């Protein structure tokens, strides 16, 4: 009977999840708010510094092991925060680029297509990197370097600027 109760609860949760998805879909149809207001600031230089293996080696050689572990945990937490912000911004760019994909101008459509693919790739990297960073906070592992996230984010920032020349990005390019 316990399993039956668990399954009933799961089915109610699944129904609620579907209702939420349907509401989200309806909101996506309208998409009336100002997307630039939702962009989170990402300092790429600071992020690169946080995930730089040389920097990590330097700190390791200079600090007491206990102190290094404490600082390294904070660095990893900050890196995870940066990646989560980059992934959040990529989601907003995805929505904008999806709309630009159907532009009658083939150059806009191609640029938007590229932006969509790169934003998805960034979210894919983020999906893999964030759990690894949190695990590394608990279990120290060999160097973790989510450099691909930083490179991809830099790339999509450029793409947004270029797309903004031909398509209204509603202030997103300056907000990035």
């Amino acid at each position, binding site marked *: 009977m316990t399993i039956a109760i668990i*399954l009933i609860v799961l*089915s109610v949760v699944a129904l609620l999840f579907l209702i939420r998805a349907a509401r989200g879909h309806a909101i*996506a149809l309208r998409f009336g708010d100002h997307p630039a207001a939702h962009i989170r600031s990402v300092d790429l230089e600071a992020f690169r510094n946080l995930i730089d293996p040389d920097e990590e080696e330097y700190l390791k050689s200079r600090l007491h092991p206990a102190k290094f572990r404490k600082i390294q945990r904070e660095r990893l937490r900050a890196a995870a925060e940066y990646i989560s912000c980059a992934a959040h911004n990529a989601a907003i760019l995805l929505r904008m680029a*999806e*709309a630009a*994909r159907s532009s009658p101008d083939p150059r806009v459509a191609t640029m938007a297509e590229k932006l969509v693919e790169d934003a*998805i790739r960034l979210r894919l990297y983020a999906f893999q990197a964030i759990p690894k960073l949190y695990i590394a906070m608990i279990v120290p592992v060999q160097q973790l370097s989510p450099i691909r996230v930083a490179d991809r984010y830099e790339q999509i920032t450029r793409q947004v600027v270029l797309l903004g020349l031909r398509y209204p990005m509603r202030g997103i390019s*300056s907000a990035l």
Partner: protein
Amino acid sequence: MTLLSQIWHVFWFTQTGFRALLLVLVFRRKFYREYPVFAGYLGWALLKSCVLLGMNYAPFVSGEQYYRVHAASSIIDAALRWAVIYEIFVHVFRDYTTLRSLGPKLFRWSTVFLVLTALVLAWLAPGSGVGRVMSAAYATERNVNVLLCGLLIVLFAFAQYFRLSWRSQLFGIALGLGVLTASGLGIYAIRSQIEPSQRNFSTDILNLITQAATLCCVLIWTAYLAASRQKPVGAVVPLPQHDLEGWNHELERLLHP
């Protein structure tokens, strides 16, 4: 005939009528070209509904014969629903080069994991109602719904994480199937445990909820397919006027970051 039973029959006739309407819609708008498996499933579900309706009222058909046909058609039904979900997976991911190969892989591995979960469930919680045969049948239906509902949840969660855009009709198909399988999971989880040997008030209520969920699913499909558009859903932004100042500003940013 009790009031609940009367409502149940009304729901049955209504959903059969809507299925027929839906099938006409699918053929008139040529959705069958894009979603052949779904169109096939709709045709099959309509045929099944009509045959079972006929058998329900035919005086020469026994209860046992009716349940045999019902059980056999449920197996085909489950297989077709699974194929429809695969079709949805393919459609959702096909517009994204990065994810195109990931879609079928995700479907395959999710199916393997959920089939194993369903097998464990069958072992841990077999049907235990007084009506042995029906309890076992409902336990099987419950396990099938674990698989189908799980696949749809994986799909929705994945699409939500990657902010993938859905064509309206595709979203409607997935949502309708989701409502059907999620409610089926709960209902069959109850029935597999408490199914009595004779029909009673609780079985009437559960039959009614099952029929209502099916009707709800058919209505969702009808609404989404009737109001659908071909382009993916996303932000609709008007094309810009030539804004030279904006261009200059962005170029400056590009050249001197």
